[in-house]
């Protein structure tokens, strides 16, 4: 609030034209004026980002379990996971169109590619860094590797997995928007990425910022949901641990 007010005063006293940098009040008005249009676009982007994030959670989580099975598997396949981290999404986004065609699939793929690595890396850390004392306990009781995985490794990896998910949630929104820049089918309106493109072309700087704000809100919403999920999941996990 204070930040917005001081920016407003700064822009107005220095006479910065609105087409170069719109004051917060103009962005707020644009939010009101284009609210329904931007909300619809944001919800469309939310579908793609959610799907990409869910795919990341499932595939990333399972990959981490596989990678944790043996150091050799890690040596063979972890570099491929790192590849997903370093891939410049803007550069390969046009290829996604060739592979998946225009539309939701390519956009979900873009969201998936940028959001999967933090989940793999964090979950793997969790799976591998179990308490040595607990590991010894499982060995003493001659627990099978599967039992160790299910009862020890996976439960102790849950907090790490959720940290990864928290990082991935913001990235999935960015990935979906980049995907929309190249792959959105917009005959019925399109997502928030397309809304940004249109606002830039129409030189509506206030609408550009309003759209960017909506995208940030979407990221914030994802973060809140993951946070809530994590509190709920970790509470259950702790209760389960205590009752055992």
């Amino acid at each position, binding site marked *: 609030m204070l930040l917005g007010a001081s920016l407003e005063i700064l822009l107005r006293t220095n006479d910065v*034209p*609105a*087409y*170069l940098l719109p004051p917060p009040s103009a962005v707020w008005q644009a939010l009101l004026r284009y609210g329904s249009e931007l909300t619809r676009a944001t919800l469309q982007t939310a579908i793609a980002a959610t799907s990409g994030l869910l795919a990341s959670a499932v595939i990333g989580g399972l990959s981490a379990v596989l990678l944790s099975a043996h150091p050799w598997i890690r040596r063979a396949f972890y570099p491929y996971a790192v590849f997903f981290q370093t891939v410049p999404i803007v*550069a390969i986004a*046009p290829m996604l*169109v*060739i592979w998946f065609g*225009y539309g939701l699939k390519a956009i979900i793929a873009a969201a998936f590619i940028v959001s999967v690595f933090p989940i793999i890396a964090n979950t793997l850390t969790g799976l591998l860094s179990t308490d040595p004392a607990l590991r010894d306990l499982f060995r003493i009781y001659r627990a099978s590797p599967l039992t160790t995985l299910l009862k020890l490794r996976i439960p102790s990896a849950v907090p790490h997995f959720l940290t990864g998910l928290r990082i991935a949630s913001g990235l999935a929104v960015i990935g979906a928007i980049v995907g*929309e*820049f*190249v*792959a*959105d*089918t*917009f*005959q*019925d309106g*399109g997502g928030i990425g*397309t809304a940004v*493109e*249109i*606002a*830039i*072309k*129409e*030189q*509506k*700087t206030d609408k550009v910022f309003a759209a960017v704000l909506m995208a940030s809100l979407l990221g914030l919403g994802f973060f809140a949901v993951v946070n809530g999920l994590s509190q709920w999941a970790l509470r259950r996990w702790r209760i389960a641990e205590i009752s055992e």
Partner: protein
Amino acid sequence: MRIILTRIILASLLAFLAACSDQSESPSQPGLWKAGLQLNWVPEPEFGGYYAARDAAAFQAEGLEIDIRPGGPGVPGLQMVAANQVEFGITSADSLLVARARGADLVAIFALYQTFPEGIMVHAERGLKSIAEVFNGGTLAMEPGTPYYRMLERRYGLKQVRAVPYSNNLGPFLHDPSFAQQCFITAEPIAARRAGATPQVFPISEIGYNPYSGVIFTRRQLLAEHPERVAAFIRAVRGGWQAYLADPEPTNQAMHRLNPTMDPATFTEAAALQKPLILGDSSPARPLGTMELERWRTLAEQLRDLGLIERVEPEQAFVNPE
């Protein structure tokens, strides 16, 4: 391609920074007025006349030292000129009117393309007869938000076509026979033919939307303070274009060195293709780049009807210097 583009962007950025620091110093050659011309793309035949003027020292002859700065995707020329970071820029008449409606007092001073050089490119095998038939099916790649996109959308609707973003990448077009895309009439069709396709082009001007393009613009304040400098600049530019239209090859070679990704044959072909768009069909021959109030008025009314601008003030938007 991307690396080269990045290099060009970096190079132009460096040139820009160098120019910025130069402005505070005294001019290198006394008596010459230093100014910059920000292009909206990499060196290609659509800028041939400017490089021809530079190479023939036409700017110096008029007492000017013009720094031609190559652009690229996303270079905000309108904003750069409005913010006084560069003196002259290149845009299309519709973008200029929209920028004016947003509060930037910019004025057009020269219009290279008398006919709008954008079109819709389709595969000739589809046997389409008109632009309307493009909207009966298949995929259509366009930049959403351009005025002519709006006009096409309003006129033909997007119910039966799949609208997707346009990228500077011919892959999807070559890959899919039912794919149509917007194009620069003198660019993509040549490349598509090279790649083995048989493209057919419907010019946007056919639907009655025909803004001037390749328009040089500047700030009104500059025009008011130094009308003689602006006029001198336009004289040199016009001379450069006359020279380029007469014999484009020497300049094409110079531009090819700046933009090696475009091969010499494409330079030659594009230079020939754009000639009728530049000369126009005006029967009483007028000096190159001259603009008419009626054309600006028609455009402003079209943009108002599309809801992109509020007021129609075409007489404010342009000047034919001299």
